């Protein structure tokens, strides 16, 4: 399974990409979508909501189960992906382009506390044991 090198990750299977304009884009990983299966419902946070790191802020629901999505870092929601309401399967099709929401980080340095691709790979390997 390929884990993009240019992203940061959480143990709870979110990915984060720092954009040139300083916002952080958040989605769920390929591993998470594989575990959940076909997506049928996505609930994204409202724009303007202020999130603490680790706060529940979105729900992805598949044919099989519902899963909470947690804010990888603290920040204010600046955008939510409008495509996912009508086409939640976009997460299955490409988990790393079907982003859920964008954040303006309180502190960009918080990103350093997240996992890099190699660190996330180790988490996945330990889950398989």
């Amino acid at each position: 399974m390929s884990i993009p090198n240019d992203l940061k990750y959480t143990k709870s299977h979110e990915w984060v990409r720092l954009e040139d304009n300083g916002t952080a884009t958040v989605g769920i990983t390929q591993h998470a979508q594989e575990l959940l299966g076909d997506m049928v419902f996505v609930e994204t946070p409202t724009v303007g909501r202020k999130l603490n790191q680790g706060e529940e802020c979105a729900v992805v629901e598949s044919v099989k189960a519902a899963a909470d999505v947690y804010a990888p870092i603290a920040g204010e929601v600046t955008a939510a992906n409008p495509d996912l309401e009508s086409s939640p399967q976009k997460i299955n099709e490409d988990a790393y382009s079907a982003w859920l929401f964008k954040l303006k980080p309180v502190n960009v340095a918080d990103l350093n506390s997240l996992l890099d691709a190699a660190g996330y790979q180790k988490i996945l390997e330990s889950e398989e044991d």
Partner: protein
Amino acid sequence: MKTTSLNKTHHDMKAKMVDFGGWEMALHYGSQLDEHHNVRTDAGMFDVSHMLAVDINGKAARDFLRRLVANNVDKLTQPGKALYSCMLNLQGGVIDDLIIYFLTESHFRMVVNAGTADKDIAWMLARRDEIAPGLEITPRRDLAMIAVQGPNARAKVWQVIAGAQAATENLQLFQATTYDKYFIARTGYTGEDGFEIMLPSNDAAGFWRALNAAGVAPAGLGARDTLRLEAGMNLYGQDMDETTSPLESGLAWTVDLKSDRDFIGKQALLAIPVTKKLIGLILLERGVLRSHQKVSMQYDDSESEGEITSGGFSPTLNQSIALARLPLKVTAGDEVRVLVRDKMLRAKVVKYPFVRNGKSLI
């Protein structure tokens, strides 16, 4: 974990395998939604070999079944005909739901659920010793079971089993026949036409491959669940179990209380008042109904409660549906509220099935 004779085939076909009541079974082969739609529009196949066929042989077979199950096997007059029934405990709770095939007066075949098979056999052997000591009860783990379902299912089976068309094209719904090494029944758990086929385990992988080559797509337990939910068919352990009455589980039509016949559990069913019923729900807002979610409704200024027994996303209707056990006074058209995660969402009460033969009934 227990495996079926198709286990390696599922792995070869890249199935996502899961533990299903102690059996390693295929959940899906890539997309549960695609598999669901295949069955509704064309043909799909399921390995259901974890379910158990049980042969009942002996002169007392029919008398034994008259006492053992809640439906009346005297409805079975034509060889090959099948009957759906519950097997009840003395309290009127459901030990299992099952299908009984009448083959000859001294040979009936029963198909029971996987997770309940051991307790079913133990119960049947104990009742056999009381009612009909000479009867032979034989679990048939030597048989594999493959369900081929969908509008094109029968035609594709006929392509694969040479000569089977003549033998099975006149089978009625809920009727079976033996052809060559196959036991072919026009039954299913999807709301579509098709066959459920038993055959020797050793031949299962070859048959599965041949069906696949004839254009039958494999489908997993995930699609099996969404298909049966749309079809309004009960799932043992969710919609009913040993603590629930079949009369409060949408199964009154399978319980024969009219005849004088005394079956196990009958006295309890007659003594206990029925206060709830199983009925359908359609979610009116975005979200997904799941089993065990609480349902609440207002009647006469008082709050009543119930619970979802099976819920999920309906791929055919593209919205969430459920079966729920609710107070008797609830009727189709009522609006209720369901606690979905942390929100109260509106749902409409409907009669089920939701889908039959590819078409929405809602």
